[in-house]
């Protein structure tokens, strides 16, 4: 395993999100942001199992998936700054794209991108190549009808779809208890619909990688879709850069327990304990990535502002075929 590379990926996401969080009060990121601090491992593992021909779609909380898939971070910063970034400044934080690495799209409407991902995997099946589509969504999205309709279709047509639910237990401020019956087990539900499903610790990157490998093998050997539920937790507010634990919608004990399970400290501790890296080296790498991200951010500020009349020309695709 490329330990240093794994740690690097984790830091890339954490440092990007922290930078947005730290800079947000300056009111230069003038759009809603949904940060993935605490949920990084699920995205940091992507590129150790999947390649750029494998496609991905995501939800409103998409920064981590975009970066994990190898998306251009400068273009993303520019997009959130309202400059001519990855979506021309039109989409903002919730509508990211980087086709060059297979990160197709993310959507601000809960559940909206799930069938789109299934459609992408349908196209992959038609091409008969060994590629699949990763669909990232939250626990809340599994309450939408379109989720079940998409699972049903993917199972019916035996598509190379990998459904990835990041179960962070909350939809905005709403806990699972007000949204789902107590013993609803999404794994059992999708299994009964004909899709193999497993659950894993989303804060343990070893487990994440192993689960992805298992899923990939299954999808290509059995020619069927696969469903993963990663248990994880978000560390800052649902939308925005700050901690909102003062609102008391999440039990203090629960927050504490999950903060002890930080995916980055978990992995760093492992590296130190196993003598793979020294603490000093880890701190140095963290600093190095932090500087790297800071530079990308600085450069992204030089992107041009989007031009209104060229933006307006994008409403229809006027290119002749």
């Amino acid at each position, binding site marked *: 395993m490329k330990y240093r590379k794994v740690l690097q990926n984790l830091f890339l996401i954490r440092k990007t999100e922290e930078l947005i969080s730290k800079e947000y009060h300056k009111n230069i990121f*003038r*759009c*809603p942001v949904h940060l993935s601090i605490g949920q990084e491992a699920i995205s940091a593992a992507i590129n150790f199992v999947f390649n750029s021909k494998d496609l991905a779609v995501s939800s409103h909380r998409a920064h981590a998936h975009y970066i994990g898939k190898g998306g251009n971070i400068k273009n993303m910063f520019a997009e959130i700054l*309202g*400059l001519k970034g990855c979506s*021309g*400044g*039109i*989409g*903002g*934080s*919730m*509508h990211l794209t980087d086709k060059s690495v297979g990160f197709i799209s993310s*959507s*601000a*409407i*809960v*559940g909206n991108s799930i069938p789109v991902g299934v459609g992408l995997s349908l196209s992959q099946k038609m091409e008969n190549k060994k590629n699949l589509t990763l669909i990232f969504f939250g626990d*809340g*999205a599994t*309450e*939408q*009808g379109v989720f079940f309709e998409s699972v049903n279709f993917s199972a019916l047509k035996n598509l190379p779809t990998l459904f990835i639910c990041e179960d962070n237990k909350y*939809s*905005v*401020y*709403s806990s699972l208890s*007000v*949204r*789902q019956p107590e013993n609803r087990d999404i794994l059992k539900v999708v299994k009964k619909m004909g899709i193999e499903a497993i659950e894993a610790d989303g804060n343990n990157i070893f487990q994440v990688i192993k689960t992805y490998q298992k899923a990939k093998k299954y999808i290509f050997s059995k020619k069927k879709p696969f469903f993963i539920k990663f248990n994880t937790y978000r560390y800052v507010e649902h*939308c*925005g850069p700050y901690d909102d634990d003062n*609102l*008391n*919608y999440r039990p203090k004990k629960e927050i504490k327990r999950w903060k002890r399970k930080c995916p980055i400290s978990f992995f760093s501790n492992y590296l130190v304990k196993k003598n793979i890296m020294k603490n000093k080296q880890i701190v140095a790498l963290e600093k190095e990535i932090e500087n790297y991200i800071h530079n990308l951010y600085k450069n992204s500020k030089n992107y041009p*502002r*989007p031009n*209104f009349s060229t*933006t*307006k020309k994008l*409403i229809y695709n006027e290119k002749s075929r």
Partner: protein
Amino acid sequence: MKNPVKFKTAINLALQRALKKDKDILLMGLGVGDPKNIFETTTGLQEKFGKKRVFDVPCSENALTGICVGYGLKKKAILTHQRFDFMLLSFDQIINNAAKIHFMYGGNLQSNITIRAIVGKGWGQGPTHSQNFQAMLGSVPGLKVYFPFNSNDIFNILYHSIFDPNPVIIIEHRWLYELESKIKFQKKIKSVEKVSSGNKGTIVCIGNTVLDAYILKKIFSQKKIKFDIIKILSINPLKVDMIAKSVKKTKNLILLEPTHKSMSVSSEILARVHTSGVLFRSKIISNEEMSVPTSFYLSDKVYPQIKKTVKIICNFLSINSKFDTSKYSYKLHDIPNKNFRGPF
């Protein structure tokens, strides 16, 4: 009770009054009862009326609308969406069920459902958090659609809608929530209201553009220019008699459209006044014909800014356009005022 009250408080008061009057009314929606309580409109209601009647829901807009339609066949339900955009998931239930249930079953059924849909603006709400398809809803027979402007409008519209045996959609604009005005219980909802008088022209406004109309009134008063200002409250059904009557006098019709021009409520009003036989000139002031981009550097050009609006009107009326608009133009077009910190 303190009166005037804020728009958001008026919502809360109307809901309280209704929930108190009929013990079978349910109030639900994503975020009802959470710490922010739909921008403070449902604050305290769960404590007062219990979790059985006032509750948060799963992310299932379409099913929940149908569930409310079903409940509304027997009793009364209120459903809230923090964005109009989220309500789009439920257009099947709204249009194929709620709107035609009374008609389609020969007048034997009715569903008593009230849906609140909040329109977002500013801070990069972008293409999927700032939409208002009021005209689309306006085209659905059997549906009632209101777009209140001030506290008194929303208080009365919401209260009476809850008891209306027809399905009602109430469009609320997020930027009106902090505005204060006096509320007074009315026996009936007004569907259109003249809020100012003048001869220079007729300004028609809806929802958030009523605010613009009031600003225009102040700006034009600098040269003692006065307009008839007519506030549309009901989009469906839409009544234009009052507008036609005013235009007959002023001969100039200016429509402040809250969305874009194509297939809009304003173009509908224009057509209807025209066919009523009155001769007049007209101008629609609206958003650009496009979804609203997220970028701060683009969104200012999509929404009509007040300075430009004044210029357009002066041009239209062939009058000198020297007016002081500085007091009403913020450098930051994406926030309602400089003290506003969200949530949006």
